[in-house]
């Protein structure tokens, strides 16, 4: 490849300088360490940690996962070491990475989001905070905030008050009008919006006549939900002016391009990492190839280039 053909995949999203627009989605890359043998984390634009909560959580009873057509359901229930466990055991590794680390948080109350934010801000070296107001698998917090524009705004403005770091709100698709939620979190100070989290789903064991998941329902992810994610991205793109981080079923370069063209400034690879741990790096390479072939010199020329 000659220099003339070099494509610049770097981008600045909500004040975060990314080497490329491919991030690892929360909950699908742990805290990085287990993935490193299969994927050089320095190759992706950034990694978003598994959601951490103020206190450690055990998560839901198993079974926690079940495969569905072109996708899977999960009902992990935010098993995580808690804020202090994260700081003590996970951050030391993360802080050494040559990629941007975005910390994803959730909490049962609005106030606790603020406390967590202050603590994470104080770590130094965190690139941004993604707020998970969209987890469908827990009884308090999560999607209960994310389904309500007022509650969503309360959480985001609280986080906003506690940090100068970029704040990203992660939205749920399980709502009547996602643009309403998007507007309210942007008004509350979100620098960017990630969408989508999982769709609520269920699977039944017809022999035992029981729900398969220990938690009855779970979150649907994977290629099956890609069309839903794209439609929501397209709507939100027209509703707010902040950068959007698109995700939902992205497994290939082609998928990533659909999101970028529709208006995502960056994309996140989730479930695909389970199937192919190197998927995100493959997509980075694929985006370069596509841009070269299509004569696109800078990523920005691609983002939102959808004709109508």
């Amino acid at each position, binding site marked *: 490849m000659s220099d003339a053909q070099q494509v610049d995949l770097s981008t600045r999203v909500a004040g975060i300088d990314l080497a490329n627009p491919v991030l690892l989605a929360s909950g699908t890359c742990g805290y990085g360490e287990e993935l490193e*043998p299969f994927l050089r984390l320095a190759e992706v634009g950034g990694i978003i940690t598994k959601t951490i909560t103020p206190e450690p959580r055990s998560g839901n009873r198993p079974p926690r996962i079940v495969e569905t057509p072109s996708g899977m359901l999960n009902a992990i229930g935010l098993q995580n070491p808690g804020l202090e466990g994260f700081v003590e055991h996970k951050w030391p590794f993360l802080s050494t990475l040559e990629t941007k680390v975005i910390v994803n948080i959730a909490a049962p109350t609005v106030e606790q989001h603020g406390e967590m934010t202050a603590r994470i801000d104080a770590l130094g070296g965190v690139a941004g905070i993604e707020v998970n107001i969209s987890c469908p698998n827990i009884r308090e917090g999560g999607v209960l905030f994310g389904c309500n524009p007022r509650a969503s705004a309360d959480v985001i403005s609280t986080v906003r008050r506690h940090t100068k770091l970029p704040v990203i709100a992660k939205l749920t698709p399980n709502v009547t009008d996602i643009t309403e939620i998007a507007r309210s979190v942007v008004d509350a100070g979100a620098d960017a919006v990630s969408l989508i989290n999982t769709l609520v789903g269920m699977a039944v064991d017809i022999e035992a006549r029981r729900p398969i998941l220990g938690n009855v329902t779970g979150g649907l992810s994977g290629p099956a939900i890609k069309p839903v994610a794209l439609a929501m991205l397209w709507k939100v793109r027209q509703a707010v002016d902040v950068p959007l981080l698109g995700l939902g079923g992205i497994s290939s370069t082609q998928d990533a391009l659909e999101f970028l063209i529709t208006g995502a400034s960056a994309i996140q690879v989730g479930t695909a990492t389970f199937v192919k741990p190197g998927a995100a790096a493959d997509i980075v390479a694929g985006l370069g190839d596509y841009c070269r072939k299509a004569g696109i010199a800078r990523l920005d020329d691609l983002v939102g280039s959808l004709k109508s």
Partner: protein
Amino acid sequence: MEETTKDLEGVVFSHEEVADGFRFLQIRIDGHLPCARPGQFVQIRPSRTTTTPFLRMPLSVSHVDRVGSTFGVLYDVVGPKTRALSDMNEGDRIDCLGPLGNPFPDVPDDARPVLVGGGIGVPPLLHLGTHLRSTGMDPILIVGARTAGKHLPLELLSPASEHVRLATDDGSLGHHGFVTDLLAQALKEEDKPVVYTCGPHPMMAAVASATESADVRCYSSLEEYMACGFGVCVGCVVERRTQANSPYDQFTRVCVDGPVYDATEIVW
């Protein structure tokens, strides 16, 4: 597979039915010596795969042939993923992530290994038995199946043990009854047995309870639904018996913390 865990593309070297529904698949990965240890598994799927089946499937490595540079898995065709696998022909390409998980721990020098397997739990024990014999040990292998036709042929079982004891639920071959009957007998016979087990959950629970009562050490290899297989999804958990200080540790990930556990660690 090389000496470290990797995601590589292999090629089907051989593939045949060896018992009713059970198939033996040998895979070669060019330029990489197989290195899985007994109890470790791979996450595999046909390379040319659509999004259904979607996730990979975990299969224990049952054979490692460092001379032929292949490794083998033995699997039962039970659903969409194993059905897709069964369609693969010699030369077809297959994605292999592994070796994954922790191997069976070593056997203390003066102990007699007793391997207790049922159904799709037998493959890792074949690997273990063959390995133990290569180190000079003389393991007992107890194998249960629903019916005679579901038993692996002796030429696959015998490399793992000179003392193969069979049971069938329907009495069509070997002992009419459960492997736990044969286990009870072996525990009586042996001075210092150590038990290694893999199989259906009820079987392993029974083995765990028998060994605990007899105060015999038992290592169980668990099989749970997996998404990633390498620790990031936290989907493949089972409950720990000894409550840890943090709720975070109540559940343990079978793929990276296991799949082999001391049977007394687990809530059965």
